[in-house]
């Protein structure tokens, strides 16, 4: 029956049911990924962010929350500026390659 309205889907992220396997696999190869404190320097300096909304900080968070990161990650140009500015010294360039490799 058409009521003229549907049922809104919940936007809650249910961590209990979230699959963050990709994040865990990535961290086992790149433990630095865990040390992100979401300062946003990487996104601020990112050449692709400006043009496409790519943000390695958001990618890290999205992986932990079980969200898809393919689109954002496909915009990375590997230029390495984020690696230069990261205050926690995370090797973001390798991180990107690792995520790209382990993504399924």
């Amino acid at each position, binding site marked *: 029956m058409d009521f003229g309205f549907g049922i809104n889907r919940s936007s809650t992220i249910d961590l209990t049911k979230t699959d963050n396997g990709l994040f865990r696999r990535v961290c086992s190869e790149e433990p630095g990924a865990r040390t992100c404190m979401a300062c946003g320097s990487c996104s601020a300096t990112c050449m692709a962010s400006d*043009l496409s909304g790519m943000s390695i900080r958001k990618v890290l968070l999205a992986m932990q929350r079980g969200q898809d990161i393919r689109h954002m990650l496909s915009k990375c140009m590997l230029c390495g500026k984020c690696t230069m500015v990261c205050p926690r010294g995370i090797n973001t360039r390798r991180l990107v390659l690792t995520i790209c490799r382990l993504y399924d």
Partner: protein
Amino acid sequence: MIDRIASGFNPFVIPFLAGMAFVLGYCLISMIRIVLQLSHADRKKFLISLVTPGVIWRNCRDIFCDCLLHVKLWKRNRLLGYMHSSIALGWFILIVLGHIEVLLFVPGRINLFYYPIFFNFFVAENESTVQGKVLFFLMDFFLLVVLSGIFLAMLKRLRSRLFGMRRTTRHSLTNQVGLYALWAIFPLRLLAESFTAHISGGSFLTVPANWVFRQFLGNDLNMLPTWWAYSIALCVFMVVLPFSRYMHIPAEMMLIPMRNAGIRITSARRGLARLEVLSCPNCGICIDACPMSADRANLKDCTVYLTRQIRRGNEKRIDEISDKCLLCGKCQELCQVGVEGPKLRVAQRASRKYPISPDFSDIDVKGSGISAEKHEVAYYSGCMTRLTPSISRSVESLLRKAGVDYTWIDRDGGLCCGRPMLIAGRTEEAREMAARNMELIISSGAGTLLVSCPICYRMFTEEYTLPGIRVVHYAEFFDELIRQKRLTVEKSDVCYVYHDPCELGRGCGMYDGPRRLLSHAAFLAEADRTRGESVCCGGSLGSISLDFEHRKSITMSSLENLYSSRADAIATACPLCRSTLARYSDRPVRDIAEVIDNQTKES
């Protein structure tokens, strides 16, 4: 000189013959496989080159100079050069002389393969001739030359610093077996020929030795065992050869023609790559060359260990070594054989499959910095320069002072040049970026593309096709402006040492341009290791896996080298080198553009 043994055969030659048959068969098969691994076009190119007279001449010359004379090693260190040429050339001449002896004295035996090698065993000296005396003298002389080389080789294992090497390769088991077999061959030959010298004759080395031996070993029964031993040593060496570093002897002889044919590495393991791997003599010069050696943890990550792991098929280590390298190119610069370590690594990186591929199709770069009107010069600063705005500001200031009509095409951001992507092994993606950038650069309508980042510069010159556009690094461009008197630079009394960025120096061969430009504004000092041997700053994008904290020791050793010049300040021409060096330097680090701009008057 007559045949001593009617049949012209003794069982002791069998080990030698077996070893020889094995090594020849093995090498032939592997060389054919390598040729088959080449792409169709490359194979054609290679085979044609083999019958092209000019190339034949080059091949012969290169093989003689590189494989026998080891000319490059002589340039590096005379002792090292002598050691290698004495063994290689000496041995080669011994073989040639052996053949001449057979031809001269027992021409009927020339079809017997082993005769030139064991000549002294099979002949008896029935009369003394001048020819015989000269030949025997030469034989003994070159044997002595080779023996001196072997002695130096032994010494090198104990005192490598005498040969200009701090570190040497840790050899694998097969390498050690090969090494000891090689060391054994010539003393055994001396022994065998000495025992036989009263029958076959000899010269200044073998005859006295024969006299000495006969004093207490006066039995001809001792003769045969030493010839057996000599033959077995040869056999062991030849059987081990394909599995040890000595494979480089046949491989290099093939590598030279293939490189002269203009073939490039396309795959990580096959074709030319395979040949380069086999050509690595494991000499270990790349260990000292590698800037990562500043940290002991990286000692096993230089090219010599890469080729070894590739031969062993240890995929985990191959990946580790490939990812760690800074791609500074110094190992290749110093390698005697010309193993292209960086290219092997990039090819290895490119062999990986990634489920996520970059896609830049929906990124719009148009209108970022491109203005409607055309300008003479388009300035492309690149990504990294954004983190060192002092460089782009100085470049702009100089352009303004010289009155150049320019536009900054990536002022408001743009696509990366693609080189970081390329050297991460993602070739196709890098091409896509390059294509988009070429479109952007061409649409700017400028006749000159001015670049301040060596990474971009190398990418533009090597991978981009920009018809009618001159790609120029500012080092050359500003030098021209100064010569044309469009810029007036006043020389300061500050003494700078110039740090060669890897991409600009070894990468593009640009060593003099930056120095020339810098000398307009300052005094120049040189570091201990400079130009082709300069030490990477450690910030290179080439390395994928080196972490921030593990790069520090590399930067420190690069700085130590620069400090050796006792200059007041450091100048470089790369934004990445500039920020990396400045992080730990105890003296100012400037980009040349900044130095020039400081010393240039407003016109």
